[in-house]
């Protein structure tokens, strides 16, 4: 599929989405964290509410959710060092961050020094969908900076599955914005697999 220019001044391609925008605090945090992790060679992907916010959803959030590949302690310490311009909210001790949090599947949170919100929640995959997202992540180039996000089709279906009002609103925003560009067959498949047809039909479509 060739890249297409969308009405909303972005290019939506099979491999990537390219967009320019005035960056807000969440965008800056996400780009900086993602670039730092990427430099260590560790695969990462941003999922959940921030994906809708990136593309214009009119709401704030206290955190951005990152999934990164499972790491050995040594590799985790390398990631920790790459994030030294940020502050870990769980603990100041990197060994403890690994042993008591990351290795147990508990998110490790990082924020700008001296601030509590917004923060980036970094964790390893804890189910098959999160493993799939990491493998099938989509590139987003924002003001020439690269981040990786969940494929939009999965993001919509997963939010339909979660089903809170906020989740359904996030999903509707993405669906209405990208519906001409989405792989609808893939979207329907995900919705079916997650048994989220009712929410999708009632509140998103």
């Amino acid at each position, binding site marked *: 599929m060739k890249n297409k220019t*969308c009405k909303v*001044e972005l290019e939506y391609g099979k491999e990537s989405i390219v967009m320019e925008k*005035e960056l807000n605090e969440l965008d800056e945090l996400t780009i900086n964290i993602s670039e730092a992790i990427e430099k260590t060679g560790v695969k990462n992907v941003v999922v959940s509410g921030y994906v809708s916010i990136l593309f*214009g959803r009119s709401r704030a959030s*206290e955190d951005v959710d990152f999934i990164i590949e499972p790491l050995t302690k040594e590799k985790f310490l390398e990631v920790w060092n790459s994030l030294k311009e940020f502050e870990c909210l769980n603990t100041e001790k990197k060994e403890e961050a690994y042993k008591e949090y990351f290795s147990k599947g508990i998110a490790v949170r990082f924020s700008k020094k001296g601030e509590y919100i917004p923060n980036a929640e970094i964790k390893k995959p804890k189910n098959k969908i999160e493993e799939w997202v990491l493998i099938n992540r989509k590139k987003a180039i924002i003001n020439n900076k690269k981040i990786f996000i969940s494929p939009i089709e999965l993001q919509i279906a997963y939010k339909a599955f979660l089903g809170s009002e906020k989740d359904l609103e996030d999903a509707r*925003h993405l669906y*209405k914005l990208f519906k001409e560009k989405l792989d609808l067959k893939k979207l329907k498949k995900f919705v079916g697999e997650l048994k989220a047809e009712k929410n999708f039909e009632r509140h998103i479509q």
Partner: protein
Amino acid sequence: MKFPKISIEELEESKKKNFEERLKFIDSYVEWLKKTPNKEWSKQQKKIVNRKK
């Protein structure tokens, strides 16, 4: 102050109506987003996102 007699059914109905109105707002907001330059919508979004809780 006397608390009014409440009807849960009535509140549930209001909640449902609010949600439906917000979904309709998202539709009109996305339509606006599509025809508004990124520089403009993202400037407005920044005000919401950067507002400290």
